[in-house]
Every structure is written in structure tokens, then in C-alpha cells.
């Protein structure tokens, strides 16, 4: 299947890209993140980070499917 990934803030700087569409064997958002770390070694662990799937805040064990847009949010600091 193919999914689109978007990186934000520190993740974007580490990945060196803002967004990419890639083939994936991952079943969860966490597995997808691991695949992305294989592509971009500078990506840190997703500890304390958040993930959204198709514009909904989700969990790292949430299921992903073909065509999903997955957003990787590094640790936030609003306010």
C-alpha cells in the first residue's frame, strides 16, 4: 500500500523533507514511523511525540490503511 507522510518542526528538519508518499508494509502508525526512520536516520524516536491520521489525533498503535495521510508531530510546545 501507499501512504503519505508529513513531518513537522524538528521532524521535518531531521527528515529533510516536508512530505513524501511512500510504499509501506506497516499496519500501525508506530510501524510506519520505524520505516521512516530507516529512510531518514536523523529522525529521533517518537517518544513524547504525537501522530494524526487523516486530520484526526490518533495513537501510535492506530491502524493505517492504503491512501492514509499520516502526520508526525514531534513534542509540542504551545503557549
Amino acid at each position, binding site marked *: 500500500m501507499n501512504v503519505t507522510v508529513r513531518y*513537522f*518542526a524538528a521532524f521535518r528538519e531531521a527528515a529533510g523533507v516536508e512530505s513524501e508518499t511512500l510504499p509501506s508494509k506497516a499496519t500501525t502508525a508506530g510501524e510506519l514511523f520505524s520505516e521512516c526512520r530507516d529512510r531518514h536516520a536523523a529522525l529521533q524516536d517518537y517518544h513524547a511525540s*504525537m501522530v494524526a491520521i487523516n*486530520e484526526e489525533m490518533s495513537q501510535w498503535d492506530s491502524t493505517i490503511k492504503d491512501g492514509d495521510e499520516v*502526520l508526525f508531530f514531534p513534542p*509540542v510546545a*504551545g*503557549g
Partner: protein
Amino acid sequence: MNDFKVTAETIDLALFRATMQDVSCGAYVQFDGWVRDHNEGQKVLRLEYEVYEPLAVKEGERILAEARERFGVSRTAVIHRSGLMELSDTAVVVGVASPHRDEAFEACRYIIDQVKVRLPIWKKEHYASGHAEWVNCQRCAQHKQERGARD
């Protein structure tokens, strides 16, 4: 209703406050987050906020609804800045109007705590040293934990 706003412009505080006015309310509590000149021993020159607006607004509205529900306050609103900011600029403003002050203080506190830990917003500090860094909110992480323990 869109009481949670993100803007790249200077926040108009007089207008913000005017929209909070409610003749059934005796108490109004406002929190302003200002860009301060230091953080963990480093001299800060300016700040940059990156905001993923679609989800920040959606989740922000959810936080405000929770505050109204939990504390029974009448009006809640937030404006959060995005982009580059100078020292003393207002990065975020939270307003809560309520018949009585207990609830207004509690709800305002709840909202800013949640805003700091739940929204897709990132802060990059530019230091006098020339260095720049994405910042994690240490205190916020702590609050999140404490709240988790209480809930």
C-alpha cells in the same frame, strides 16, 4: 462557533476582551503568554511558532468545550500566534468569563495547560549565541503527568 483562533498578526487584545464581555458574568480571567528574554539560562532574541492550523483549531475547540463542560463557565476563547515573534509579544491569550471567579480561574488554568501539551504547535527559540532550537516545555510535561495521576 470558532473560539479558538490562530493568527500570524499581532493579537488585538482590546478586541479580544470586548468579545468576552457578558452581562451575566461577574468574573473574567485572562492569561497572556509573553515572549520572554531568557529560557533555561540562555538569552532569547526571538521566537518562532509553527502551527498546524487545521488540527490545532479542531483540538483547541475541543479543549474549550471541555472547560465549559467541566467548570460551567460561560465564555471561553483563545488566540494563538504563529510565525516570527519579538520579545514581549503576546504569543497566546486565553479568556474565560463566568458568573463567579472560582470557576473562571480553574477553567483558564485548565485551558492553558492543555494548549501547551495537546496542540500541534512548536516553538523555536533563537538565542543570542546565534543558535536556534525547537523547545520542549519541561514544566508542561510535568503538568501533564500530574494531571494524568489525578484523573
